[in-house]
């Protein structure tokens, strides 16, 4: 076996040194009746070339040359080449949690920089080293709010990513945390009247997403005021990190729970991604996850260590702030490198391109279908309502190797024939025009002739 660095003679010599005759004696502690006397029924040992072929074949079955308008919590942005060059260095790739600070300063300093940039971008005072993803970060942030306030109930915006809501429901089930859902107004934002009614003296926190699942930017300041005047905390979930380049961060929030996948992490069919929790300094001791802090060594030299570990499971066991141990360090490094590449100016310009593409696309779609929530600011997603079921339109688009917007019937049946479209800097004008053409054609085919003028200049 090519990964094993021993010759048969080495094994013999080692067994002899131990004083054993055969390797079977090493497994004598396992009761004989349970020992496996046959080969595992798994694929035979394959050559490296065969393994590569196997996965290339799977990639082809996956439809590798499609362009897509999908977003909804997983975004296709350009990944600078140096991300993979750097994270492929074995010293990053094949190290573990930096328990031994003297020989882990590379990982520790990089996490410290990551925490710093996450604070800068979110407007919070402290950020952790990472959580599994945006959905679990949101659930953990809510549990943190429950600990901080000593209250138990939670008000969640219906415009929070539906799968994040599902994850929160799972986490909350056995914590005795009643969840109530605040609906979405006609402007695509949380219905503030409903929100106000749902908050009680038992509400630990309000959880909203901004930009929300529909791409609409919430009025965070107004929501914060409603929550905080009732003694509840505000948790803001951010699923599209690139928005932070141009959208005011939720500075009024008490906790920010983020998904940083947009920052240089491949779509990878949904993971691994990179969650982050950021908050105010005064709440840090209730924060879950690893934290890196700056300190000095015996000679007074600056260095970095894992710190405030008394919050964590390996010290506190059943009284820990969370059971999280392994998190997403390598993915956080991707995110860190991405943030460093784009930096102060690039992130803004990148976000601006997303905004421009989306403004163009929404304008074009509006000529044929109905673009919902147009009165509110949005980032790079929008909802288009059509006469025909978007799944039917998408099936036609798929024939042209384009994946249309995400049909919303499964998550939001009340929106009718609606789909969530996303444009990033990777979306080209011709892609947009082609997709708009299909929507236009669909509208023409289902509407009586002459009812609605169709813009002729829209290219097919």
């Amino acid at each position, binding site marked *: 076996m090519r*990964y094993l660095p021993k010759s048969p003679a080495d094994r013999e010599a080692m067994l002899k040194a131990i004083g054993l005759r055969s390797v079977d004696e*090493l497994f*004598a*502690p*396992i009761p004989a009746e349970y020992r*496996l006397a046959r080969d595992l*029924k*798994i*694929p035979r040992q394959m050559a490296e070339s065969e*393994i590569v072929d196997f996965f290339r*074949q*799977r*990639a082809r079955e*996956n439809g590798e040359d*499609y362009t*897509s308008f*999908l977003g909804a919590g997983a975004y296709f942005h350009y990944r600078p080449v140096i991300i993979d060059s750097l*994270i492929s*260095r*074995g*010293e990053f790739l*094949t*190290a*573990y*949690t930096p328990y031994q600070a*003297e*020989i*882990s*300063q*590379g*990982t520790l*300093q990089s996490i*410290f920089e990551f925490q*710093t940039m996450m604070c*800068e*971008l979110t407007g919070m005072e402290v950020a952790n080293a990472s959580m599994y993803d945006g*959905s679990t970060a949101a659930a953990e942030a809510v549990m943190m709010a429950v600990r901080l306030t000593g209250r138990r109930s939670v008000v969640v915006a219906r415009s929070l990513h539906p799968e994040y809501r*599902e*994850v929160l429901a*799972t986490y909350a*089930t056995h914590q005795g945390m009643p969840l109530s859902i605040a609906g979405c107004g006609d402007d695509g934002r949380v219905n503030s009247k409903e929100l106000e009614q749902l908050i009680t003296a038992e509400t630990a926190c309000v959880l909203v997403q901004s930009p929300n699942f529909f791409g609409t930017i919430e009025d965070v300041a107004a929501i914060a005021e409603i929550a905080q005047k009732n003694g509840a905390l505000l948790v803001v979930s951010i699923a599209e990190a690139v928005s932070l*380049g141009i959208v*005011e961060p939720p500075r009024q929030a008490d906790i920010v729970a983020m998904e940083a996948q947009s920052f240089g992490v*491949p779509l*990878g*069919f949904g*993971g691994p991604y990179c969650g982050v929790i950021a908050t105010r300094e005064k709440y840090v001791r209730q924060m879950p996850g*690893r934290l890196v*802090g700056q300190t000095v060594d015996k*000679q007074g030299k600056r260095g970095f260590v894992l710190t405030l570990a008394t919050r964590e499971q390996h010290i506190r066991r059943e009284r820990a702030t969370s*059971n*999280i141990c392994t*998190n997403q360090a390598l*993915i956080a490094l991707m995110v860190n490198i991405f943030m*460093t*590449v784009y*930096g102060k100016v690039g992130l803004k310009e990148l976000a601006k391109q997303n905004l*421009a593409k989306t403004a163009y696309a929404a304008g074009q779609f509006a000529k044929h279908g109905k673009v919902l929530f147009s009165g509110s*600011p949005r980032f790079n997603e929008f909802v288009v309502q059509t006469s025909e079921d978007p799944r039917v339109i998408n099936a036609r688009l*798929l024939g042209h190797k384009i994946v249309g917007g995400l049909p919303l019937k499964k998550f939001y049946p009340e929106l009718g024939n609606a789909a969530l479209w996303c444009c990033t800097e990777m979306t080209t004008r011709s892609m947009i025009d082609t997709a708009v053409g299909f929507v236009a054609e669909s509208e023409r085919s289902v509407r009586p002739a002459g009812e609605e003028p169709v813009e002729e200049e829209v290219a097919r």
Partner: protein
Amino acid sequence: MRHTTPKATRHVNQNEGLIFEKSSAGKAAWKLPPLDVPEIDVSKQLGSSQRKDLGNMPEVSEIEIIRHFTRLSTWNYAIDLGMYPLGSCTMKYNPRVNEAVARVEGIANAHPYQPEKISQGALRIIKTLSECLIEITGMDAITLQPAAGAHGEMTGLLMVRAYHQSKGNARKKILIPDSAHGTNPATAAMVNYAVENLKSDSRGMVDIVSLEAQMNEDVAALMLTNPNTLGVFEQDIHKIADILHANGGLLYMDGANMNALVGKVRPGDFGVDVMHLNLHKTFSTPHGGGGPGSGPVAIKKSLEPFLPAPVLVTKSDGTLGFEYNRPQSVGRVRAFFGNFGMFVRALAYIQANGPDGLRQTTEDAVLNANYIRKGVEGTFDLPYATPSMHEVVFSDKLQAKKSVRTMDIAKRLIDYGFHPYTTAFPLIVPGALMIEPTESESKEELDLFVEAMKSIAAEVEEDPQTVLDAPHSTRISRLDETAAARKPVLRWKPAV
């Protein structure tokens, strides 16, 4: 310092500040293509939601970023540099073909919501890996959704709870041996179960008499690590399972130490009802400085209705798809389908090994641990003489007489060119040295390790201060952790 090690030599490495300290206005490492749609007026689009400033985000060039992170990387120890015997973490070789196939276009760029019609490749990968893991564990079904081991524990206990609930009584507590990982009790608390400690006997195994006494209708499950954190196989496993089952309880296995068992014995065959695996331990996906992990949960048939939704199924037309309508499901534990990129790597590892390679891997892992045990025994105190599987736990009892503790020995090991073992865990061994070499070490590397351990033991006798002041060869010496925790500095701020 009295010792020169044949393994390591000091060499120059570069100093490097924080990235913010290199930043200055006007430097850039990015370039966007020209916009092919009309420019927009941002303030008109966003109004008061427009962000004006990105604060202290850095501005640096590409070469500076390359040098920055390359320099940082050289300050890390890693498996690629040498033996990393961090017990319980299974720091084995991370094959590079895993990385190559995870980056194949069409796998790396697949969107989780793309139609199933054009996701058959990804779904086939999930199915193939699932089948392999079911066969390896001897279980009946599996979910790959959990993002790490502790997340798998939570998922497993949620299913345990749902199972008991379906029988009319969710029960109240989880039994956890005193040798268990901290994640076990922390997880039980997240699922709102009380934790009851279970004593180990003089062999370091579950005390059967205590188990019998503590087992009753309030116990939902026993969370057992097997081999346990002493590296000892629970020889009475059949009795343990019987006691649990006779009282309607379930046996949960923490699969952190599965590297001792693959291809040799299957948990499903010795009575386990639910278990998690760590793909980043047993199945070679990279540890990455602390993740990403992946924590699949394998279960027996009786727990299948409670699997997190969605569940992968073969549809009537033969294609693969997800089934979302699972009325008894515990719900979702993560958005999308889990850490898919880790599934790709784990499957590539299984394919590279095959049944014969996996068995040989397990045999070598156990052989290596026992070789170290034989080499170091006598020099360090072995608190439990019970046979070791894939790891061995010593204590610092002999060295403590000179006031040298496990952490000091660990720090000194750094000077010898090794990553330290796990210190001070499991908690049932005061001053533990928990050593897990994995199968990835050659006889030469193991011999160097044994030699280093003996040399350090000799130093403790002759010149304990050298060990107490270690490490001597690193960029920085021991850091002031107390100060770090008392007045936390968790981010960089510009000098005022």
